[in-house]
């Protein structure tokens, strides 16, 4: 283990890192515990989520299991301790197992569509970036992509997105400039 951290995601079950809770650290060598301290207001009449995430050592041992538990009284809200969930037994079924990563091949960029576009068009494909992975094992994790404009004028573009495709699962990540468009129809 190289580190452990907690992130609050509000009412969303989707993990993201914009709101850390407490300070990231490592498990104590003796107690094997870490405590995250903070002050996060919880909205009424809702279910909110906190994710615990691990950063793995580059020399982590393959086939080792990773897991944790929250002991009784391990959660404090407004001065009252809560069990939170039933303790999780790390064995014999650890939450995650360390495996060698899948093999990433050559990343390629292609123009997935080169037909003309018109003012007001939305979601028009510009580039497709392909990431071929082979073998089984731990998934390759994409962390960032920097997109460089090759437009005649960036004001011709009102918004742009990254759409990741992993088999049949799609998710859309959008960036939008200050120039709004009035049309919402998708013509592809």
């Amino acid at each position, binding site marked *: 283990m190289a580190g452990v951290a907690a992130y609050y995601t509000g009412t969303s079950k989707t993990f993201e890192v914009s709101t850390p809770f407490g300070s990231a650290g490592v498990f104590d060598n003796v107690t094997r515990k870490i405590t995250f301290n903070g002050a996060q207001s919880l909205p009424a009449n809702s279910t909110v989520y906190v994710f615990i995430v691990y950063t793995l050592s580059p020399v982590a041992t393959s086939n080792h299991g990773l897991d944790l538990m929250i002991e009784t009284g391990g959660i404090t809200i407004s001065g009252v301790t809560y069990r939170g969930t039933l303790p999780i037994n790390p064995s014999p079924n650890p939450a995650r197992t360390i495996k060698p990563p899948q093999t990433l091949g050559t990343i390629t960029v292609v123009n997935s569509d080169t037909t003309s576009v018109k003012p007001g068009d939305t979601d028009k494909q510009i580039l497709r970036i*392909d990431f071929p992975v082979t073998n089984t094992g731990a998934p390759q994790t994409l962390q960032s992509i920097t997109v460089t404009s090759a437009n005649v004028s960036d004001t011709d573009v009102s918004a742009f997105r990254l759409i*990741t495709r992993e088999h049949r699962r799609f998710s859309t990540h959008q960036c939008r400039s200050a120039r709004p468009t009035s049309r919402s129809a998708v013509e592809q």
Partner: protein
Amino acid sequence: MPFGATHQPFGGGTVTFTGIQDFSAPNATHSVFITYDIANDASDGHTVDAKINTDHIRIEGTTRTPSPTAIPPVRAL
């Protein structure tokens, strides 16, 4: 949830999307599409395009360069 900061224009001609996306399915090609919305007052005859420069992809803690980094043609208005 967004992947990277939202509502940002091309700053200095580039923008970086940062997040965590596992390519979980083994033995598969995973694709990322870059798409544009075209402004209502976009100029006729202009072209729109994007490219990924050297080392501008980060995956598994390592910077990567796609092949090729830029390709013609573009999409014309």
